[in-house]
């Protein structure tokens, strides 16, 4: 195979990564933006979404689409409930103090992960995709008889992967409308700008915090449900996406929605491209060091207005 099909394949895989990553990073960024909480347990909400998707889908027989649809509708709200409970029981009581929140969410990470290990077990389990046709992608070639199409071997994607990309675009648009065009979005933005003034104007800050934390977790869980037909559900699967979404949020600038999406595209596609050509470990080393240096030398990120 020549270079061009490789590039297209890397691009497509990268777009799927970017789609999932942007949902997850958006949740992380929302929680940080509004609550100033660095949620280290965010990756576990992603994992819980995927594991719940397996649990729910396995209850259904017949066409896999029914199980998947049920998972899509039930898993994110359930995960949001866990997150809201954690918010009320732990985060609220330590008054969202930055350092203590980090320590507490590290604790939450281990609790959620290990409880999953005890109940769901150490196996990786797949969920069948609702539809999964293979699509081959044609390329244009210049031959003696003019332009013609040809189908390189191995170059293709599936309808499900395209659907994931579409779903992410729709969800991101939905969140953007929620944040900019609705009353609850207004309350969140007011709390983000100035917590105390918002409170003085009668905004129920406590309820806004609980909603945002739940919404953030639901976004991560949605990403988990969407990824589980491509990648299996496993109790340790939250680790890498957490790291990547930290990277996305930091590069995109905290609390900036367009920045998060652009950074997710950048990281997702370069991750796809780099891992086609280089060892994934080397790619991760470069990415983590890159984040460290962005934080050190450009603390406000590439698009954001303020730093950590």
């Amino acid at each position, binding site marked *: 195979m020549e270079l061009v099909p490789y590039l297209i394949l890397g691009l497509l895989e990268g777009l799927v990564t970017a789609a999932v990553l942007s949902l997850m990073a958006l949740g992380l960024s929302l929680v940080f933006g509004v609550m100033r909480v660095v949620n280290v347990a965010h990756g576990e909400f992603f994992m819980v979404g995927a594991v719940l998707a397996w649990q729910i889908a396995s209850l259904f027989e017949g066409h896999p689409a029914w199980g998947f649809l049920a998972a899509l509708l039930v898993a994110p709200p359930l995960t949001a409930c866990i997150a809201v409970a954690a918010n009320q029981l732990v985060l609220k009581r330590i008054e969202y103090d930055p350092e203590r929140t980090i*320590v507490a969410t590290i604790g939450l990470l281990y609790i959620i992960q290990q409880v999953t290990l005890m109940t769901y077990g150490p196996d990786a389990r797949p969920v069948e995709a609702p539809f999964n046709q293979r699509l081959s992608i044609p390329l244009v070639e210049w031959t003696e008889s003019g332009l013609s199409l040809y189908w390189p071997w191995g170059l293709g994607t599936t309808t499900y992967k395209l659907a994931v990309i579409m779903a992410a675009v729709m969800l991101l648009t939905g969140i953007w409308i929620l944040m900019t065009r609705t009353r609850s979005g207004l309350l969140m933005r007011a709390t983000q700008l100035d917590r105390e003034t918002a409170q003085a104007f009668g905004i129920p800050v406590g309820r806004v915090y609980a909603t945002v934390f739940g919404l953030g977790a639901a976004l991560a869980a949605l990403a988990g449900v969407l990824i589980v037909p491509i990648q299996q559900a496993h109790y340790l699967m939250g680790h890498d996406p957490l790291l990547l979404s930290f990277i996305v949020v930091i590069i995109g600038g905290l609390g900036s929605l367009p920045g998060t999406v652009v950074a997710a595209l950048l990281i997702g596609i370069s991750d796809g491209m780099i891992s086609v050509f280089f060892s994934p470990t080397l790619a991760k080393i470069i990415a983590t060091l890159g984040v460290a240096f962005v934080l050190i030398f450009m603390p406000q990120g590439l698009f954001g207005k303020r730093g950590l």
Partner: protein
Amino acid sequence: MSEIRKSWGLHTGVVALLLALNFILPDYHHGNLARVMVLACYAMGYNMLFGYTGLLSLGHALFFAAGMYGMSLTVQHLGWSAGPAIIVGLASGLAMSLVVGILSLRTAGVAFMIVTLMFAQAGYLAALYFGEYTRGDEGFVIQKAARQIGGIDLSDPMSRYLAALVLFAVCLFITLRVVQTGFGRVLVAIRENEERTRMLGYDVHLHKLLAILLSGTMSAAAGAAYGLLFGYAGATFASVQYSIFPLLWVLLGGAGTVLGPFVGTLFMFYLIDLSSDISTAYMLIAGLTLVLLTLFAPQGLVGELRRRTLRWLP
């Protein structure tokens, strides 16, 4: 009796007690306590930065692993003997903390935590990437023949315990001495109010950097000793989990107390040891402890003791 003499007395007493335990303890606990003492040195290194200077690092596994690999790789691949190899371990810890310190101190607060976390993650991945030498997660065993200093066989339980005790005592008395000097007091002042310390004319940046160097090197010493005494080096010791552990130990024992790290390590070690008999999900205990500590006892065990009765505890 003055407070300084009281605290020297107490800490010498603890070391003497540990020496006495060497001759009494049954085999199983004897081995465990040696392990706890070495890990407590790691915790004391961490405490120097987190407890006294107020800088929360999430990447100390980098320094622990620098010491461990600095020592074990020279033994394994260059055939050096243990003594000089330990020096190499210490030097790599010092160099690593100098680089990380200079870079990460340009940030503060949450950014500092994430930067240290990222550096440690890069270090862990590098250990996996150079799997040809480090054998990655699987790790490698350091041969019994190489684990000797001056004719003393460190794989023998008795000399291993005593070597661990010597390292522990050195780290304990260094910490105790540091917190009694002006340098240590400036560190505490930085923790309490950085701006005011700067106003008083102290070079805050330099003091923080020195704290990182001391903390990183102490952690590296623990890493090198752990590899040497227990004969194994692996990438697990560079993973995020090993950056979280010292935080957990120090928080449990009491941040900013000299004995806290040891008490926390001992407590946590046995908690995990007992619970791993019941379930494989032993990290659940660590998670629960972290959450409960932040909620109910942010001072830790020794910290609570100091707050309630023994106000003179350093």
